[in-house]
C-alpha cells in the first residue's frame, strides 16, 4: 500500500527534515506517527501527497512511484488519499457543506450520492447542525472536524490525519477516534500524526516514532513513550 525506501528530505533553506526513512504500511493498518515538535511528521505526509519532492529515496503508493509523477497525475494520487491537514486548509468563504462536497465534486460523483453522503459524514463528526455555516463562524475544534469530514467523505484508500484531535477536548477526541476505527475496520489504511499520549497508549496500535527526522522506534502494539 505505502512504501518508503531510504527517503530523505532537505528543505530549500538547508533544514534536514527527514533522514533515510524506511517505512512500509500494509493495507488496512492503523499507524500512529509520534515525535517531538519539528521531528518531520508533517514533512512525511507532505511527501506522500507529492506536495514536496523527496531529496533522496523512493515513495510508493498503491504500487505507483510518487516521487516523479507528472504534474497531471498528482490529482489522481491525491484522490486516493484523504488528508486532514494540520492547518485545516478550509475554504473560508464556502459553507461547511460546500467544503465537504467539493471533494466529491472533484471526482464527479453523482449529485444524488453527494446529497446522501455529505450529511452522513457531517453527522459522524458531530457537525450536522453546522452544515450551512462558514468556517470563520466555527470554533477551532469544529473546523478541525470539517477537515476530517472532507478527508473521509470519499472513503479513500489511505487516510493521512495530521493531529486530527489537536484542537479537541478529550471527549470529542474519543468520538473522533471511534469514527477513525470504524473507517479503518472498513478497510481504509490510516496514518495518524498525534501528540495525544493517552489516545496512543490506550489504543495499542502500531506506533512509529520520529526524532530529528529519523525513525527511532516502530512497534506493532506500541505506546506514546518509550516503555523501558
Amino acid at each position, binding site marked *: 500500500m505505502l512504501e518508503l525506501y531510504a527517503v530523505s528530505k532537505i528543505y530549500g533553506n538547508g533544514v534536514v527534515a527527514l533522514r533515510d526513512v524506511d517505512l512500509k504500511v500494509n493495507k488496512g493498518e492503523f499507524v500512529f506517527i509520534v515525535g517531538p515538535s519539528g521531528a518531520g511528521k508533517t514533512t512525511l505526509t507532505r511527501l506522500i*501527497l507529492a*506536495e514536496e519532492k523527496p531529496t533522496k529515496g523512493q515513495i510508493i503508493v498503491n504500487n505507483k512511484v510518487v516521487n516523479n509523477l507528472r*504534474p*497531471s497525475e*498528482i*490529482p*489522481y*494520487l*491525491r*484522490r486516493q488519499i484523504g*488528508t486532514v*491537514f494540520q492547518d485545516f*486548509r*478550509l*475554504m473560508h*468563504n464556502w459553507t461547511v457543506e460546500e467544503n465537504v462536497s*467539493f*471533494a466529491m*465534486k*472533484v*471526482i*464527479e460523483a*453523482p*449529485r444524488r450520492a453527494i446529497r446522501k453522503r455529505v450529511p452522513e459524514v457531517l453527522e459522524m463528526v458531530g457537525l450536522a447542525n453546522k452544515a450551512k455555516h462558514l468556517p470563520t463562524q466555527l470554533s477551532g475544534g469544529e473546523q478541525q472536524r470539517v477537515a476530517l469530514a*472532507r478527508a473521509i467523505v470519499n472513503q479513500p484508500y489511505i487516510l493521512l490525519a495530521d493531529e486530527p484531535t489537536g484542537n479537541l477536548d478529550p471527549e470529542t477526541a474519543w468520538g473522533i477516534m471511534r469514527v477513525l476505527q470504524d473507517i479503518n475496520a472498513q478497510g481504509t489504511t490510516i496514518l495518524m500524526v498525534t501528540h495525544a499520549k493517552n489516545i496512543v497508549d490506550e489504543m495499542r496500535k502500531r506506533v512509529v516514532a520520529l526524532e530529528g527526522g529519523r525513525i527511532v522506534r516502530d512497534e506493532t502494539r506500541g505506546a506514546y513513550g518509550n516503555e523501558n
Partner: protein
Amino acid sequence: MRIRTWAFFTGQAFSSMRRNSWMTVASIGTVAVTMIVLGIFLLLGGNINNIAGNIESQVEVSIYLQDEITSGQVDDLAQKFAAMEQVALVKYVSKEEALQELREMYGESGDFLAGLELDNPLRNGFRLRTHRPEQVLEIVPTLRSFDGVAEVQYGQGFVEQLFAVTNVMRVVALGLMLGLASAATFIIANTIRITVFARRREISIMKYVGATDWFIRWPFVIEGMTLGLVGSLIAAGLVAWAYSAAVVNLAVTIPFFPLVKPWPFLLGVSGWLLLIGTTIGVLGSTLSLRRFLRV
C-alpha cells in the same frame, strides 16, 4: 466532463463573483473604464481617418486647354481622360463657368471682376478626380502629354504637403489605437492577475483536495469571461450612446463638420470592444492561474 460538472463550474463562477462582490465590482469597473477610453480612441481614430480621406478627396486636377482647340478635339480629350483607369470623374468647365465660380467665391468684394465677361481672360478646361487621391501624382505627366492641353494644375507642392499631413494623421491615429488597445489589454490582464493572486490560497486548497488543473481553471475562465463581457458591454453601450448624441448635437452646432455616421461605424467599434474585453478576461485569468496551479 459531465453536464453537472459544467453546471457546477458556472455556479462556482457566479457565486465567487457574488462572494467577492467588492473585487468583482472593481474588476468590471476597470474593464468598463479602460474599454470606454479605448472606445473613444477608436472613434477618434475612425474620424481622423475619415477627415483625412475627406480632405484628400477634394484634391482635383485642373486642365486648361489651348484657346485655338476645336470642340471635336475637346470631346476627344474628354473620352481619353475618361478612359484612363485612375480617373473617376471628368467635368468640362467653360471659361464662363470658371468666371462665375470666381465671382461666387469673392462675393461682395469681387467688384474687380466686373466687366471681365466682355473680355474673359480665363480658359476652357477640365477638372478630374481620381479613384484614390494619391493617383493624382501618377497621371499628371500623362495629362501634360496630350495634344491641346495648355497647362495642368493640381496644387503643386500643396498636394504633396497635404498627403504628408494626412499620412501623419493616419499613422498617429493608428498608433494611438494600437497603443491604447495594448494598454487596455495590459490593465485588464493585470487587474485579473491581482484578483487571482488574492485567491491563491483557495487555488492551492483545491489542488490539495485532488482537483485537476482544468477543474480549477474552468470557473476562473467563466468568471474572467463574464467580467470582461459585462465590463465591455457597459463600455460599448455608453460609447455608442455618447457618440450618437454627439453626432446629433454637432450636426446642429457645426453642420459642416464631417463626423462619421453612427451606423455601421458603432457596430464595428462595439464589436472590437466586446471582442477585446472578453478575450482578455478569458486569457487574463487562464494565464494568471498558471503560477498558482503548481502545488
